[in-house]
């Protein structure tokens, strides 16, 4: 069974996944990551794009041992809610840290890493993960 990565979707999400590009409501100021076309706070459709800092801290986390097909070599995967210094909270994987050493409040920074590969002939999907500072 092969894992299938949607090539158009990977391409469409490059700015968000490589550069942490968010959308910001120019009416109420809410930052949306992943980017949204419409503000879910005030309904405004006029949002602009902004790169996030990539610096933040772990608010909470969970460790996934039973993973989706195609992710076994990455297991265990640490998923965290990271609060960036802009105040926005984002869901992301942690890397370069052993699960037993993850701590709430740990300072982290964004790094580009492989997210998954479509076997050995398909696309490699890259994106932002967070590692301890």
């Amino acid at each position, binding site marked *: 069974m092969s894992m299938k990565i949607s090539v158009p979707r990977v391409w469409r999400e490059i700015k968000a996944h*490589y550069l942490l590009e968010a959308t910001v409501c120019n009416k109420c100021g809410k930052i949306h990551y992943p980017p949204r076309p419409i503000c879910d706070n005030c309904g405004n459709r006029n949002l602009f794009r902004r790169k996030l800092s990539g610096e933040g801290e772990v608010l909470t986390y969970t460790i996934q041992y039973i993973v989706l097909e195609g992710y076994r070599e990455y297991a265990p995967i640490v998923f965290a809610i990271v609060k960036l210094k802009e105040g926005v909270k984002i869901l992301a994987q942690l890397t370069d840290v052993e699960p037993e050493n993850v701590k709430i409040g740990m300072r982290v920074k964004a790094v*580009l890493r492989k997210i998954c590969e479509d076997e050995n002939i398909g696309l490699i999907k890259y994106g932002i993960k967070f590692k301890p500072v």
Partner: protein
Amino acid sequence: MRPARDVGIVGWGACIPKFRIKCSEIGKTWGFPPEYHGGLIVSEKTVANIDEDTTTMGWEAAKNALVRAKINPEEVEAIYVGTESKPYAVKPSITVIAEALGITPKILGADLEFACRAASEALEASIGLISSGMIKYSLVIGSDTAQASPGDVLEFTASSGAAAFVLGPRGENTVAYFEGSYSYITDTPDFWRRQLAPYPMHGEQFTGDPAYFAHIIAAAKGLMNKLGLRPSDFDYAVFHQPNGRFPLKVSVKLGFPKEKILPGLITPMIGNTYNASALIGLCAVLEEAKPGQRILLVPFGSGAGADAYSVIVEDGIEEKVHLAPTVKELIEDKIYINYTYYAKFRGLISKFSF
């Protein structure tokens, strides 16, 4: 070669993966005699994490170089990565790196291949582009996740890492400049990897004298003759570092004392990072060098070729050292793994039907 206008280093950065395996662990796994690897003068090596590759390490080194350069990344007009471990056989690594640095689309770029010397070719090409006035800044990356067949003696040293440099016209923001360079290339069958072959082969007796030593010595002597310099005119010398022994031996042959080699000799702590090998050494030297000091840099690539550069350190370098992680800090930040994790991280374990 001397450029029409001086070109210098504006920023530098390294990426040294966090995971390490001790050479004694590799030797024990494959039944080598204890301390069989002692002669290589490499005690441990880096291992790229399961989610790291040439692209991600190149990005991280480039990010550090751009922080030290203190320029708007969009001013970079060319980006090159020298590697012999491209994640894709066909699809550039630099497009991902450039996109993730936010410096696309008005930019030149390519992945270059010349064994461990490809990033040095990128240095030469960038010096030419900048010197001619075609571009202002170039980003040169050397990045590799070096392959080694399990159980091969190469496995003691083949490691992972990246180095990056922002080059620009010599001026207020350069911290070192290239005084001159000298290249020496021949067809020498010392090391190769054929299409679709997962691991390289080495031409045994060609590895040392006819390849590494002949090319490095010819390039270094050629440069010194051309510039009218002697080993005593250099404060540091950084050679390609396939192991810890070869750079020490070549320095003796060229007449450089050990104390000028050791600051840039990084392979004993992290292994051979191939395209980043000599360049991480240069990063380490830049992090301790003083303005006015002269550095000899000689990367080497199998196949074979070497380039010798004379690099003169300029004012302002000390202020940039701690803007990004130093080589010393990166070396000390480590997690040891055993051969089982190493095998998983290096993709040595075949899974079946899931």
